């Protein structure tokens, strides 16, 4: 640690093994009625893992069906599989994943606070999330939903006779939970920073969580409205989107994507925040261009609200609006490019070591780069005509979501595991899993770029026979990817019991959270932590 003076906690207070937050209470009540942001993080981590499993199983069904051109599942099962995969992965894993787990756990620690601004609302958000999960279960039990996670009308409001109502309730509830989490974190960052911790001394993860919360609070209400109108269209025949009664189906697409494009920034910004912490930590070097990365986060959060029209390039949207949205979509890509350049430049003149989180960081940079570049294809108007709604789009957003967001999630899990659990994870297994995931991922999704260029449409249960070889390759990759995900689950749970005791700062990283014990005490700090020379690493 650098020349920290006043923050040296007295040695007497270092006797922490007894009173850390995990030992602060036992039994179900201490978990289900907890006000401690660290325990709420654990509640989310467990429920996220369960729902990720539901999403992963449905993904396996999709890849299984596409093994043969005539589809191994019947069309309705396939449609339900990709719909539940979309809904669960987007709304129940990717949007909440990092903010509600590592954001919850680390935000107060990183800014030197004892808890988030509204602890009760924090717990209430988790209950709303769980109710949303129950609605998804209800949707599955009553026959599943076959509208796709985009719920395009008039199919979803008039023609589909699947459990759309449960899906809409699930999305509405988890959206409300997302709003409350965002609201909570924004007030926390504004109001509960330690004295002297100005905005430009905040760790970049806090910037990322702030940007994410900003987008969550401002985008989700319009999704809530789209779901409410869809619900009323379906039940009361409120014809807002029904073309026969004068409604315009494209208006639903506008309202849906006004939230759903900023939502992809909700999904990727936290992982970017994790990268901005992990890479400097293992490069043992200051982050390159701290201000540029912080401002890029805000730029993405702001301009992210202006670009949703690139999802409507091939529909009845006017050509001029398309041109405007294309330019804005390019504008929003610049900050992302700046971040990738800065992460790479952070390695310059560093002392790089390659623990598992750093491997995930390298995976993130490589795959997010490809995801970002292919996103530029889709922002280019003429290329979108050819590539819209083909497997190119599927490969693009999986490179960003799985290659980017999930790698970020796993990097965060490994990087802060010692701090959260007081245990070290098995390093060799973790590195092996990181490499296996990288290989499995690329075998699964790189062929889909080629399928997309060849014109294979998405959401097809059956397809022309010439696309089969690449689909079989992709399905094979999916098996490797599936196994790859089981590894971290296994050895991290194993480490809870058998992992070696973790020191206070195993990676010699900077930041308030590394100044407390592992796992930290119930009230985070015995005395208000005072600023180090440059806490932002």
């Amino acid at each position, binding site marked *: 640690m650098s020349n920290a003076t006043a923050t040296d906690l007295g040695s007497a207070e270092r006797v922490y093994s007894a009173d850390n937050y995990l030992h602060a209470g036992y039994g179900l009540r201490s978990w289900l009625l907890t006000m401690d942001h660290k325990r709420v993080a654990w509640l989310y981590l467990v429920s996220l893992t369960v729902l990720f499993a539901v999403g992963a199983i449905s993904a396996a069904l999709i890849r299984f069906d596409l093994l043969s051109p005539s589809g191994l599942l019947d069309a309705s099962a396939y449609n339900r599989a990709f719909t539940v995969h979309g809904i669960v992965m987007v709304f129940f894993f990717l949007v909440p994943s990092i903010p509600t787990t590592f954001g919850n756990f680390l935000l107060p620690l990183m800014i030197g606070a004892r808890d988030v601004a509204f602890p009760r609302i924090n717990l209430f958000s988790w209950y709303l999330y769980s109710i949303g999960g129950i609605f998804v279960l209800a949707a599955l039990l009553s026959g599943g939903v076959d509208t796709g996670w985009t719920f395009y009308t008039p199919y979803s409001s008039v023609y589909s006779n699947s459990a759309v109502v449960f899906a809409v309730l699930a999305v509405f509830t988890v959206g409300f939970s997302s709003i409350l989490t965002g609201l909570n974190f924004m007030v926390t960052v504004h109001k509960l920073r330690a004295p002297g911790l100005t905005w430009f001394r905040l760790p970049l993860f806090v910037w990322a969580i702030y940007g994410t919360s900003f987008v969550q609070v401002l985008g989700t209400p319009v999704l809530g409205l789209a779901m409410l109108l869809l619900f009323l269209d379906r039940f009361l025949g409120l014809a807002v989107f029904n073309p026969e009664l004068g409604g315009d189906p494209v208006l639903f697409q506008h309202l849906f994507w006004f939230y759903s494009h900023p939502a992809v920034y909700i999904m990727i910004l936290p992982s970017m925040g994790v990268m901005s912490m992990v890479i400097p930590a293992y490069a043992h070097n200051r982050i390159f261009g701290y201000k540029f990365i912080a401002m890029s986060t805000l730029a993405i959060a702001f301009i992210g609200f202006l670009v949703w029209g690139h999802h409507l390039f091939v529909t009845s949207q006017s050509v001029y609006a398309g041109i405007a949205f294309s330019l804005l979509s390019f504008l929003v890509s610049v900050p992302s490019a*700046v971040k990738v350049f800065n992460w790479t430049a952070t390695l310059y003149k560093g*002392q790089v070591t390659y623990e598992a989180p750093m491997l995930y960081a390298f995976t993130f*940079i490589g795959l997010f780069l*490809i995801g970002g570049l*292919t996103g530029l294809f889709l922002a*280019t108007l003429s290329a979108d005509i050819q590539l819209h709604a*083909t497997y190119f789009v599927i490969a693009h957003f999986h490179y960003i979501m799985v290659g980017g967001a999930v790698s970020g999630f796993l990097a965060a899990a490994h990087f802060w595991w010692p701090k959260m659990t007081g245990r070290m994870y098995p390093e060799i297994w973790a590195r092996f899993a990181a490499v296996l995931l990288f290989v499995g991922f690329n075998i699964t999704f790189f062929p889909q770029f080629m399928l997309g260029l060849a014109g294979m*449409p998405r959401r097809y249960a059956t397809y022309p026979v010439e696309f089969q070889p690449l689909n079989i390759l992709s399905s094979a990759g999916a098996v490797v990817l599936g196994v790859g995900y089981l590894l971290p689950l296994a050895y991290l749970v194993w480490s809870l019991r058998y992992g070696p005791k973790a020191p206070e700062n195993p990676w010699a990283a900077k930041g308030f959270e590394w100044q407390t014990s592992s796992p930290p005490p119930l009230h985070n700090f015995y005395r208000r932590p005072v600023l180090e020379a440059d806490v932002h690493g």
Partner: protein
Amino acid sequence: MSSMAHQFFYLPEQASTIAAQADAVLIGWIVLSVAVTLAIVGAMLFLGIRYRRGARVDTTPVDESLANRIEVSWIIPTAVVFVVFFFWGGYVYYKAYTPPTGGDPLAINVVGKQWMWKIQHSNGVLEINELHVPVGRKVVVTTTSEDVVHSFAVPAFRVKRDVIPGTYTQLWFEASRPGTYHLFCTQYCGLDHSRMRGHVIAMRPADYAAWLAHQHPQRSLAEQGAALYEAYGCAACHAPGAHARAPALAGLYGTRVRVKGGGELRVDRDYLRRAILEPHQDLVAGFQPIMPSYKGQMDESQILALIAYLQDLKPGRRGPSP
């Protein structure tokens, strides 16, 4: 150029005039992306290895002003490349999405219906999931849907446009290579979305004429429209002789009419369709809202036939045009 795109970049062969330009943008992006990826991943690995822990290298931090100059050195080129591709792609998109005005294009009506394509030629030929077009002649396809949103996509022609119920969308192409190409529905539309496929058969003009001769449609689209015009008794009010209870329809298509409540609208297909289904919405000024709505009595193909008849109706000509 065409086979290269097909060989190296997995793109379907270029079977329409716009394909080459569209592919140029795509291949430009692919090449640039591969280059950028190699550059950055290469830099990452190089820096990662050169500055690994324990390497005897100078690790004095980079000073602030140099760092800012480096930042600008990669923001500006990125932005410039983006703007270049924005204009290039926008230009090709504008050309692909504005139907040709002159040159007597072949008019095709396509009605998407849950899980099949009904394709009407102007001479009355009706095809299901099949579209025969001559090479070298512009084809303008007007699409609508009878139920949900579909999307008419022919990858080989590099065309794709959503088919939306309640309104008409248009796309155009000019086939350049004879052959049979995939026709896909690329907007999820329910159970058999993946079976809503068909073929577009581009033929040399001679073969197309021979094929056309074999089809012996009873009546052209306009004639079918005329039959509907009679069957639904439109002539009772709209015939020129009728005592001015409804606007005369001859030669009305393409002109502008003043609408009740102010404002002027162009009489295009959308206006005619609305006038048939929602007569009171954009009432022509000076007329009473007495026309009954025909919603639910005609399906989209019949409406398109009726509109084809109204398009051909010229003042002074009694019968429907051949």
